[in-house]
């Protein structure tokens, strides 16, 4: 008789006690819960202080990572209502163009144009998407895939808003450290805000629409109105990202609708884990730096990206975050199995 081993996984005691309510018995348990959170939050907050130590290039990469993280959070909130978007670039581009227009024609300063573009852009996107919110699954995905390209072509064809040249020479943002802290603050506000939102009763309706929209209709709730609200809320961080990057680059053009801004957030969320906002954040902060390192390989990095996307979608759909979380909260030990 041979003895084989299998892995037995057990939840740590602290996990069982703190899954819903935090009943902590010691500093050690407090540290156990806080350490991974503080490591990430502190890491992000401390990064801009490294200004003298790291190349300024990496600060720009950080800015890009925050942008993609905002778009990824936005994607994840839409996905939690069951709206799968293949075109987050639409939000990004609309936010960028509104702020670009306000800045170049009316010469308003960024601290006025960015908030206006954020709210007006999200409102515009929600209005534009309202007629197609009836669609589900891949049909909504098809619409969102084509919308950014439609805007791009319309701008190219009508030559409005600067046409193919875009609008350049916009008011720059102050110093990069300040810019970074602004976007990090917005990022954290969005992250914690969305987490709270989705756990509230209001968020429960969102999740209900995703899981079974018909029963939500049967409960007497107008799901299209809720979906529109979800698109508006999800649009806010994305249009902010667009407006912010427009001022940072001092330029807005058709490249704001580029597929990058749709594919990167999607990949980040899928790799990090769909449905937990922390996954979207983690994915963005992992993928954007990796993508910068791979820049030397030219378009091969897009291939690597796609392979990562396929591997995670097919092989590990729970994403890195849930995987890491599980490992952190569990013991593993081999147990003998008799055959």
């Amino acid at each position, binding site marked *: 008789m041979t003895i084989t081993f299998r892995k037995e996984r057990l939840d740590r005691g602290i996990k069982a006690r703190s899954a819903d309510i935090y009943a902590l018995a010691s500093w050690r348990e407090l540290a156990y819960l806080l350490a991974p959170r503080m490591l990430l939050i502190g890491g992000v907050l401390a990064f801009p202080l490294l200004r003298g130590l790291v190349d300024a290039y990496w600060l720009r990469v950080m800015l890009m990572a925050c942008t993609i993280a905002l778009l990824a959070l936005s994607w994840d909130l839409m996905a939690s209502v069951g709206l799968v978007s293949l075109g987050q670039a639409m939000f990004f581009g609309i936010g960028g163009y509104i702020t670009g227009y306000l800045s170049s024609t009316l010469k308003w300063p960024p601290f006025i144009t960015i908030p206006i573009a954020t709210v007006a852009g999200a409102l515009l996107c929600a209005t534009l998407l309202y007629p197609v919110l*009836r669609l589900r699954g891949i049909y909504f995905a098809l619409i969102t895939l*084509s919308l950014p390209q439609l805007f791009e072509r319309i701008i190219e064809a009508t030559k409005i808003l600067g046409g193919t040249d875009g609008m350049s020479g916009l008011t720059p943002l102050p110093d990069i450290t300040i810019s970074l802290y602004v976007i990090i603050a917005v990022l954290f506000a969005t992250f914690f805000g969305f987490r709270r939102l989705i756990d509230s009763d209001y968020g429960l309706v969102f999740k209900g629409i995703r899981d079974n929209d018909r029963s939500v209709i049967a409960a007497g709730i107008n799901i299209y109105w809720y979906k529109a609200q979800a698109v508006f809320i999800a649009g806010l961080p994305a249009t902010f990202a667009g407006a912010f990057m427009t001022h940072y680059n001092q330029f807005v053009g058709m490249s704001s609708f580029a597929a990058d801004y749709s594919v990167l957030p999607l990949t980040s969320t899928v790799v990090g884990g769909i449905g937990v906002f922390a996954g979207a954040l983690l994915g963005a902060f992992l993928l954007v730096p990796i993508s910068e390192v791979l820049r030397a390989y030219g378009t091969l990095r897009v291939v690597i990206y796609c392979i990562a996307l396929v591997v995670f979608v097919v092989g590990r759909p729970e994403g890195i975050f849930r995987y890491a979380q599980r490992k952190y909260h569990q013991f593993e030990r081999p147990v003998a199995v008799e055959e």
Partner: protein
Amino acid sequence: MFASILVNGLVNSVILILTALGFSLTFGLSRVANFAVGGLYLFAGFAAWIFLRILGLPYAVAILLAIILTGILGAIIYQVLLVRVRGIELSEVIATFAVGVAILETFRWAGFVTYEFNLPSFFKGRLEILGTVIDYQRLIVIGVGLFLAVALWWFTHHTKIGLGLRGIAQDEHTALTLGIESDWAAMLSVAIGSALTAVAAVVILPLGIISINVGYEVLLLAIAVSVLGGLESTVGLVIAGLILGYAQVLTANFLGPQWMLVVYLAAIVTVLAVRPSGLLGRFKEIEERV
């Protein structure tokens, strides 16, 4: 002017129908949205090019090999990837989209970007119809397109395999109880769809050069035509192809070529918003889309 619009519109329409045939067939038969069509299209083009120019095979053999190879690639994509995420639409879409982009960008990275990558016409020469000059290759495109549209309609409506495949699309569980193996059928439908995309590629690509961006455009066109026609209706597909093809020529003539893509995209968005099942799509409208 009128005759030229008539003839060019027809050519464009048939090109669109051919491009969309593979995507539409796969979706109609197994509800797998194969977003890798762009990648498969160029894979077929470059495969034919390699067989022809580097291995020196006869043109007909090269084309046949390219079509078969693309079909096999489609089957592999299904067996390796899609079978694991079957039924999860989002995962299917993301996985196939990523595969398509990966294929395209691999070719770009490998340097398949210059003007030497082109396929020769099947026959040289041209013809005059209604005062409009049209070369033989375009006539072949029309012929192949019409033949395939009719052949596929016959295949899906009057053969056992075709009916079985449609059964899977309509109600998978009932089809299973009748002995139709769902995974096998889905693999077959992806393989046939891929092979059809390859046919479209080898017939259409001789009209221009093989460029990577064509691959991205193909996906967009295939989606536009399929969505407009209704994703599971062959007749709808043909009508949608005609509408978009003529719309394309008319916009190019009267508004300017830069408006052509706007017309497509606006068509997708409007149709999905107003009549989500497409012009002639019928079944499962309520459950799947709205």
